[in-house]
């Protein structure tokens, strides 16, 4: 039984007007007929999205298809020989440089963020200068870092190519990233935490280390993990600081040279097409590492984050 519409005096019949959030496909089509350009834009949006997703999937899937069949136990042997071309030493070098640079950049980045958020007023001239410096560091291309690291550590300090020089160069590169993510994490801690701590008689330092930092840990850790991703993916900044030997034998100490995974891949590529399979295999390892690192950062950043 249809409900009969009775219009009182002064009322307007609104039954034919469709609410904007309840349009059917037919309504949309009618609107598009009146505004063909909107339809063209809609098609463009769809095409662009498909292209973007297609490009990513093409890179990922093609690399997997090319790389996975080339995996072998040889590629993960502990000792590098000219016949097995093992990537294990390079993986270990990557790990060593990553741990070192994250330690350095982590301490400096987190401390600087504490200063910027907890101590300094945001109108302070010094804070502005630090912010400009961080922005500049974040923008410098990796090859410029590489050339600088070579001038500074390799030539000026006379270290020659060393893992330590590479790690310090990388630390400079990821400091801004860690500072920014830590700043955001600190700002997300509600002021009531600080006030509560002060009210209980804790000093500023105690408040920071006992109350604020523990609450901000997920954000800080996910920033550090993103920094790890940068180190794993970096080629040029490490090539001229940590060295680019193709026989990536395990260096015996921090003051010796060694190539990371990306540098090793670059060296194999520049040897020509002979190592086609191995290079694709390394690319797969790099992509797996990227996916793992991103997933971990996302998990820690979102899942462990408490709602205050």
């Amino acid at each position, binding site marked *: 039984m249809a409900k009969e519409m009775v219009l009182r005096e002064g009322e307007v019949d609104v039954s034919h007007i469709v609410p904007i959030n309840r349009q059917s496909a037919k309504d949309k089509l009618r609107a598009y007929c009146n505004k063909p350009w909107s339809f063209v834009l809609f098609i463009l949006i769809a095409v662009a999205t498909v292209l973007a997703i297609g490009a990513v999937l093409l890179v990922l899937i093609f690399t997997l298809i090319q790389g996975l069949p080339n995996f072998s136990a040889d590629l993960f042997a502990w000792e590098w020989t000219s016949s097995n071309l093992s990537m294990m030493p390079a993986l270990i070098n990557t790990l060593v440089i990553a741990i070192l640079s994250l330690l350095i950049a982590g301490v400096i980045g987190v401390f600087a963020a504490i200063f910027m958020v907890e101590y300094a007023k945001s109108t302070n001239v010094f804070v502005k200068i630090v912010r400009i410096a961080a922005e500049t560091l974040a923008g*410098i291309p990796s090859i410029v870092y590489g050339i600088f690291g070579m001038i500074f550590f390799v030539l000026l300090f006379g270290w020659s190519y060393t893992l330590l020089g590479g790690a310090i160069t990388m630390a400079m590169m990821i400091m801004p990233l860690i500072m920014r993510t830590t700043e955001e994490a600190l700002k997300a801690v509600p002021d009531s935490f600080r006030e509560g701590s002060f009210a209980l008689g804790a000093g500023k330092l105690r408040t920071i280390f006992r109350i604020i930092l523990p609450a901000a840990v997920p954000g800080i850790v996910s920033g550090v993990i993103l920094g790890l991703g940068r180190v794993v993916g970096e080629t040029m900044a490490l090539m001229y600081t940590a060295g680019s030997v193709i026989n990536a034998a395990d260096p015996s100490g921090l003051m010796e040279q060694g190539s990371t995974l990306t540098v090793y891949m670059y060296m194999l590529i520049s040897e020509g097409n002979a190592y086609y399979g191995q290079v694709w295999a390394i690319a797969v390892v790099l992509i797996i590492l990227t996916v793992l690192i991103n997933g971990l950062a996302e998990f820690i950043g979102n899942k462990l984050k408490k709602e205050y």
Partner: protein
Amino acid sequence: MQNQAEVAAVAEAESVAKIHVGAAVKEIGMKIVFAIAAVVFVAAVLVICIYLFVRAVPAIGQVGVFEFLFGDTWLLGSGYYGIGNLIVGTCISTVGALIVGVPIGLLTAVFMAFYCPKWLYKFLKPLTNILAGIPSIVYGYFGMQVIVPAIRGMVGGGGFNIITTSLVLGIMILPTIISITENSLRAVPKSYYEGALALGATKERAIFRTIFPAAVSGVMTAIVLGIGRAIGETAAVSLVCGNVPQIPTDLSMPFMTLASAIASGMGYSSSGFPLEVLISCAAVLFVFILIITILIMLLKRKSR
């Protein structure tokens, strides 16, 4: 008795004061440590600046500023150090990357912000993060092995050319453009969009005529950051650009960028005067990036 109590009270007061002094010293000491950490950022920029330019300025002086910046012959081994063609190459590859990356990136950002169903978003957002995280050398190798032969088949020549480089760089700047544009589109108050719809605009008209103008500084920041990434990209570009220091006259010709010139130069001669010239190239690149950084800061100030 009274005297003894007095002494005890004084001693207690003294020890309390000592604790307070100790705590105050610790507080101030740590504040200084935190401040030093912040100073490290400024020091790092200054040290990079100083050491690059201390080596670059005399070398550029020796070559001659004009011959260095506008010279059209780059032959590191034979003493020709003109980076004019390399600067043109850098500009070409950057513009190419923008032509590929900006339209696709902006439209994809619109999709992510306004059209994407939730289940798809859960899949797309991590995908753009992964796209941003894939090492540039992997993109370079993919370009070299997949895009180069494809383009060679289409336009002939070696396949190492402007089209290939633009495609590779365009894909590489996509995640930067998508995520920053998406954030700035989402930051526009919903009432703008709803107001436009209520006035009878279609969804697309509402987005492109009200949201985009409101988010323009964020969109510009995204594009400028993309430019920054494209200018400095080395590992990928040096594998696909062909490394011929010439000004290409059509899209299928190889060329060379500043960054790829440094990379290939370092492979051949990493000592003596050629090294100083390569450092000078890095200094020029650094100046480009400084200009980009200043642009970004101006854009951010405008958006406030």
